[in-house]
């Protein structure tokens, strides 16, 4: 952490987005995390992504639970809405918020402990509902905030700073999401913003549940030799299979993508992203083949990253439930609650 605030001055040549804002306008309070924490880099990537997508700050909601990772919404988009919930309960709070106002863009920031240990039940049900949100797990393999105990994402054999290696099977959020039918699944690394920023942009634009599992090293409790979530380990076993480019609606898809390797994906919301495969054998639209590939590479000790699965067919929660387009929060009270008589009519249909 730093004692002085980041000076308000900026580089005069800093780009402005379509709203006339710079990345500095999407910053938040100065981080109080340990210097070098991967989570701060993810924060910077989120800032870059919402800046590039011209997100209006008042249309963004930042949701989180408890943990170092869950603290980070305080460090970006200080003009936006936010809810810091109980440990592991961010998905239900987001479900409630989204149910009431489907117009906002929801970005949930969680940790491996928050999502895979205490909050795993909440996590899986948000996926099942295909809740329209961008769900980021800042995955460091430990409970950073409570001083480095192994979390449910720690790999077998991974060494703690002191003590015995982990013996339990890890929960891999990516395979879990794949098996539960999530519609946008990505993995990335806090130390690779070139990959991470477009993945977050895609996740924000995707309609439905999008998971971005980000390996985000804990410099203080899990960046030593023998850790499988350190900067050095992640870089050594990094397997980057797919790149994503966001195509602005005004842009043509450029011919620069090699035939067969470029795969334009038209998002339900009208935007387009282009996947560029770095590995020919990978098909990110097939659940079965993705699953197999991920397993094989995991067994080979590799960390597969990129946009690993995408499905633009499935409807998100509101569509599945046939809800009105207008956010419930904006409906006039009479429409939202048509009265006793209407309720009786409705109930009588089920008698």
């Amino acid at each position, binding site marked *: 952490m730093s004692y002085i605030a*980041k*000076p308000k*001055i900026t*580089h005069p040549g800093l780009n402005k987005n379509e709203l006339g804002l710079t990345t500095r306008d999407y910053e938040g309070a100065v981080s109080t995390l340990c210097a070098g*924490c991967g989570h701060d880099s993810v924060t910077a990537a989120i800032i870059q992504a919402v800046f590039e997508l011209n997100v209006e700050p008042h249309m963004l909601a930042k949701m989180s639970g408890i943990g170092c990772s869950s603290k980070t919404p305080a460090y970006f988009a200080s003009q936006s809405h936010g809810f810091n919930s109980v440990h592991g309960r961010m998905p239900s709070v987001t479900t409630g918020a989204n149910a009431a106002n489907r117009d906002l863009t929801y970005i949930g920031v969680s940790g491996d402990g928050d999502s895979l240990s205490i909050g795993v039940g909440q996590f899986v049900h948000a996926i099942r509902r295909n809740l329209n949100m961008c769900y980021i797990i800042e995955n460091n393999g430990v409970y950073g905030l409570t001083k480095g105990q192994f979390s449910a994402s720690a790999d077998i054999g991974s060494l703690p700073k002191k003590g015995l290696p982990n013996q339990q099977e890890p929960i891999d959020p990516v395979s879990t999401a794949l098996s539960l039918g999530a519609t946008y699944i990505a993995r990335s690394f806090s130390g690779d913003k070139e990959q991470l920023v477009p993945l977050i942009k895609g996740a924000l634009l995707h309609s439905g549940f999008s998971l971005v599992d980000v390996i985000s090293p804990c410099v203080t409790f899990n960046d030593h030799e023998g850790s499988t979530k350190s*900067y050095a380990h992640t870089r050594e076993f990094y397997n980057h299979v797919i790149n994503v480019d966001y195509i602005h609606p005004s842009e043509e898809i450029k011919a620069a993508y090699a035939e067969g390797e470029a795969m334009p994906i038209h998002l339900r919301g009208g935007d387009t992203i282009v996947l560029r495969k770095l590995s020919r054998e990978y098909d990110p639209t097939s659940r079965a083949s993705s699953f197999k590939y991920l397993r094989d590479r995991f067994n080979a000790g590799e960390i597969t990253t990129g946009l690993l699965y995408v499905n633009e067919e499935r409807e998100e929660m509101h569509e599945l439930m046939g809800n009105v387009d207008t956010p419930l929060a904006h409906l006039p009270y009479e429409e939202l609650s048509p009265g006793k008589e209407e309720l009786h009519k409705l109930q009588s249909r089920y008698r």
Partner: protein
Amino acid sequence: MKPTDTANPDYYHKVVDCQWGCPAHTDVPAYIRMIAQGRFSDAYMENRKSNVFPGILGRVCDRPCEPACRRGRVEEKPVAICRLKRVAADHRDDITDRLPQAPARSNGKKVALIGAGCASLTVANDLRPLGYEVTIFEALDTTGGLMRTNIPQFRLPPAVLDEEIAYILDMGVDLKLNHPIDSLEDLLGEGYDAVFVGTGAPRGKNLEIPGRYDSDRIHIGIDWLESVAFEHTKTIGRRVLIIGVGNTAMDCCRTSLRLGADDVKVMARKPRGFFKASDWELEDAEEENVEILVNHSPKEFVYEDGKLVGMNFELMEYNIDEQGRIDRGTVTGEKFMPADDVVLAIGQDNAFPWIERDIGIEFNEWECPVVDETTMMCTRDGVFFGGDSAFGPRNIIWAVEHGHQAAISMHKYCHGENIEDRLPMGMNLASQKMGMHEWSFSNDYNPASRRLMPHVDLKKRFKKLDIEVELGFTAEQTIEEVERCLNCDVQTVFAANLCIECDACLDICPVNCLTITDNGDEQDLRTRLKAPAENLDQALYVSAELPQTGRVMVKDEDLCVHCSLCAERCPTGAWDMQKSELLVPYAADESPQDQPKVAGA
């Protein structure tokens, strides 16, 4: 790019923009920090080491450091460096016991310095403590050169001059006033071991147009200012035209107002932006209601019944091209301007009628001696030049730097050493880390804007010629202004082998100086950084390959505000904030009899 060689003292020196811009390499951030701590005498002595006349320069320095100052790129206005120098001078205690002393015994060498201006005085300052017998020959009956005869007293009080010149003369300099040298050949025959010419550029340029010699109310600016300084001239007409728009013109117009003129116009041939005068001198003149008329080219003096009544000007129109260059202009009309007196302030020339042309001193086509820019020696061994006499009119701080360099050469020359073989500059680096988030300097950015110098009330200041207009900063102003300095000498020093590429420094940097990327050549790298690096005058730092990915850390020095946040956020201490101290060699550091050593060591 190859990894940056930060062992070369020039690299970090250049980051300290003000010090790099100062001809005498004054350690500006160091003395500003001393002022911030209330150590005015220390700040004064730090200045004196390099620029010799802090009280004088704190008022009238040409301040090339200010346009160079980084703060002026980060926001609009640079740090008021010169004003702070004056704070140090005004509030110092008695520092006489900290001044250099002449040794009890002479070193047996005699040097002659011609002219008692700032150039010669600097040579005396540097050589007298080494035991040289120093004689200064001055044509006038007083010291200081143009600082006394031309810079008006309302900008530079004589008491300030007297005090700082006395510091030097009191070391036991043999001063011969009223002693013009009219033959260099004769002087060279008097057995001096070395001779220094510090006679300035004493001839004001003339304007050869019709009517020039038909009135005694047409004055040459520098001569007229001198006669005002010596009180030979005490009045001037009501309407005055000043021809030219350089700094001399500004002094002439403001002096006229104090001698009784009430309608003073400065006539400029070119438009604004092409004026020679410094912005602050223009501002000060305009504050006194001097009118500056642009695009007026002098044509002729106009007389009625044999009496000067004014001048005719050609009205000019210019084209300015995309590079900002101006053409020669076309005449679009003519205009008469009434005047009682006219002062010509269009520049100065060198003149050496007293230097024989057959004594081995070569002169160039502009009648200037051919002088080596490093050693300050002319084509005759043992004769050195400095100040305006060397390369034409410049300013005080250049004259001082010439004096330092000439003193080194004279010292080596007198001991039979090769004057080209000079000590290099050195550089010390010391970490400023005091604790987790503690630095030995104030790294927090003060967003305050530049403080404005308070002036004597317009009504009061014209009553006498010697009322100093600038009052000096108040304590409150000083406290704000010192905090505007970005401490550019506290360098960001990088250890590539420690970096784990976590991006923390990149993300925190408020001005996007830092990028980790694949290496490339400079042109290419400049386009791939987090923020455009368009200022080609400012260096890119490029690290060695980083251990994990083989990429490099690149820093664009241009806008770094030295906030230390990169070093605070770095988990491995790959960034550290280290104070660079430039070691500038002076004559005293050259010890001809000893082993060679590094400056300042």
